[in-house]
């Protein structure tokens, strides 16, 4: 067996912080085959159990080994409709690769990177899988939201023969994949390619349409036989500390949207501005915080701090992102918490006052609870602060729909198996149900909902 893990080539940190191009450069065919040869083809395949959509990992890897890349693609596509995306953004280290039997001794097989290779190969050879001519059922389904949950549901439903219309609030479909996750981690061309494939398969996408404001869910129910809601966790949380509305304090959503979706990094060629701080401070420790910090570096900030209230071990971001952020020069202020934003007489942010934290006994989540160290306050000079402390469920649809059951936090309540909401004909899945989670989980939910919608449309039974 070939024990050496293949290392995917990357742009050098000092180069890549000057551009928005993708950091990882991808495997060559040879490297992919070598990496595939490491897989032991385990009979009980623990890796598959670790994947939320149970991609048949040994099967697709074996096809790579035989250099049958398109066959490998077909296998992955059987359960995962966005492999080029998942191969890049899945937290593999806590999913498929965590369970790989090689993990402890030699390092897991790079399942995500292989998945990415296969999908890129398919895209680059433009060997688009044939669209099957399915018999039309004459049933119409509306999908609200075009994030991974909505797109997956749409793709499944169209292949089952239903007519599908996706309604998206923004001008560009893709959800977090286009407005949140930066170009250097997930090139937008890849997302557009996947969406084009859906359109070619017959999915209708209507952009610029906010359901719940422009039109209600009940209006949709009059025109469609079923509705799937995948509106995501797009509601930014703030810290609720003094000075948070000063000029220069952004939610991560606003900062990333300005830059990713609106291309403010090319301002003034593009019209949307963003403040390019000399010093930037990011508050939070998840993927969103890493993306914000690394984006700030690429906008030319000289000093980027990341303030997180626990220690490195508790950080929820993907290991790879933390590692990349460190390499690129993000300064980690760990065990610290913001208490106030301070501004000048014109209302411009000048600094963030923070307090040191220490870890006490574990809390409900099993992580050690941070408590303030009295008298340890300190200030970080900063022109821009980015609040990345989480997102709540997008409230618009629930607010405007009588009879829709929601949880205490405002998430839509569904039956875990059927993804049915409390309203007849309405299904939901993804972050709007689970709270902020992952791309692959949202896709899994979209897929489950689609088969349950299909069943409902066939039987009419609720």
């Amino acid at each position: 067996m070939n024990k050496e893990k293949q290392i995917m080539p990357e742009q050098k940190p000092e180069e890549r912080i000057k551009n928005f191009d993708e950091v990882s450069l991808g495997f060559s065919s040879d490297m992919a085959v070598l990496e595939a040869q490491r897989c032991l083809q385990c009979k009980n395949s623990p890796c598959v159990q670790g994947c939320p959509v149970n991609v048949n990992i040994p099967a697709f890897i074996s096809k790579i080994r035989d250099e049958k890349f398109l066959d490998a693609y077909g296998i992955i596509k059987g359960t995962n409709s966005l492999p080029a995306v998942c191969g890049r953004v899945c937290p593999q280290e806590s999913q498929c690769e965590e369970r790989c039997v090689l993990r402890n001794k030699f390092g897991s097989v790079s399942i995500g990177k292989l998945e990415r290779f296969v999908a890129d190969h398919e895209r680059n050879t433009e060997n688009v899988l044939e669209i099957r001519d399915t018999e039309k059922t004459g049933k119409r389904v509306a999908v609200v939201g075009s994030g991974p949950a909505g797109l997956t549901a749409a793709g499944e439903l169209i292949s089952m023969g239903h007519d599908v219309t996706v309604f998206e609030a923004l001008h560009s479909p893709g959800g977090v994949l286009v407005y949140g996750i930066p170009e250097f981690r997930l090139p937008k061309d890849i997302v557009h390619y996947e969406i084009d494939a859906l359109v070619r398969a017959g999915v209708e996408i209507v952009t610029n349409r906010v359901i719940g404001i422009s039109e209600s869910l009940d209006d949709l129910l009059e025109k469609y036989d079923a509705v799937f809601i995948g509106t995501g966790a797009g509601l930014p949380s703030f810290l609720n500390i003094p000075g948070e509305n000063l000029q220069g304090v952004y939610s991560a959503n606003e900062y990333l949207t300005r830059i990713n979706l609106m291309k403010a990094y090319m301002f003034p060629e593009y019209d949307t501005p963003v403040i390019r701080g000399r010093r930037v401070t990011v508050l939070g420790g998840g993927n969103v915080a890493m993306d914000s910090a690394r984006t700030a570096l690429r906008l030319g900030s000289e000093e980027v701090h990341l303030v997180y209230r626990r220690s490195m071990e508790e950080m929820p971001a993907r290991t790879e992102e933390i590692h990349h952020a460190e390499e690129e020069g993000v300064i980690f202020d760990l065990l610290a918490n913001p208490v106030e934003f301070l501004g000048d007489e014109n209302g411009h942010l000048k600094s963030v006052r923070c307090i040191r934290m220490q870890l006490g006994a574990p809390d409900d989540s099993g992580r050690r609870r941070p408590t303030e160290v009295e008298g340890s306050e300190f200030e970080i000079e900063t022109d821009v602060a980015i609040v990345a402390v989480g997102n709540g469920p997008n409230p618009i649809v629930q607010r405007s729909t009588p009879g829709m059951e929601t949880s205490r936090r405002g998430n839509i309540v569904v039956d875990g198996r059927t993804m049915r909401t409390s309203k007849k004909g309405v299904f939901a899945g993804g972050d709007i149900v689970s709270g902020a989670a992952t791309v692959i989980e949202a896709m899994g939910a979209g897929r489950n909902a689609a088969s349950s919608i299909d069943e409902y449309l066939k039987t009419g039974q609720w």
Partner: protein
Amino acid sequence: MHLIRYNEIVAERVGMMIVEAPYVAEHRKAGQFIILIIDEFGERVPFTIADADSKEGTITIYYQIVGKSTDKLSTLKAGDFIKDIAGPLGHATEIKKYGTVLCIGGGIGMAPLYPIAEAMKSAGNRLLGVLGSRNSSLLILEDPFKKICDEFLLFTDDGSAGEKGFVTHGLEQFSSGGKIDLVVAIGPVPMMKAVSDMTKVTGIPTLVSLNSIMVDGTGMCGGCRVTVGGKTLFTCVDGPEFDAHEVDFDELMMRHKTYRKEEAESHELHRHKCRLDGMI
């Protein structure tokens, strides 16, 4: 893509555009707005729907030329296109019979105010109107507004039209003339603040429509946040109308200045480029 049917300058640095947006035209209610993106490079810019014709499938907006995007808008001609129009967005105004409603419009604020005034009138309210601007050349919608008002007063800062003075004088005059059940004030933030300060004292319920800087307009970015009654609310999905007496106007004015530097740079570059293009 949305075909522009009409786009002309109708007052000093104010343009009026009629553009095809059948969905918006059919669904819009008074008080709602759109977000448009002019072209591939465009930002998302909010404008109030001043009028709509659902048969023609068109909406009307009035825009004040203040920066790059509105400058770009003013160079478009009938036959050109707007890339994206999202909407209708925001809550509609609560239209019902209040009794006597006083509508106060300042400058470009007349555009959002007019459809509200019209709807208030149709709902059976007695309609009082006050309109104000710096000078006569900045006035828009004066005639149609006057026509629907039971009583109407006009003010300019320099006295070039109507009485010399500010809209707050109109508020004083009407307040002393009898009971007012609701004031709706839309205009520059300092004007809305001045009106609000006065009606707070007299205890007249007052609505204002806020024009925070926006990005998505769907409640996702929080960029449009305002402090209302000590709470952080999002103008795009919680508003744009709020109880004036609860709004932190000073903070709103401060936040309006966020991109001064960047906007000036970008606008200057745009004008420079236009001049160069003009020379070729």
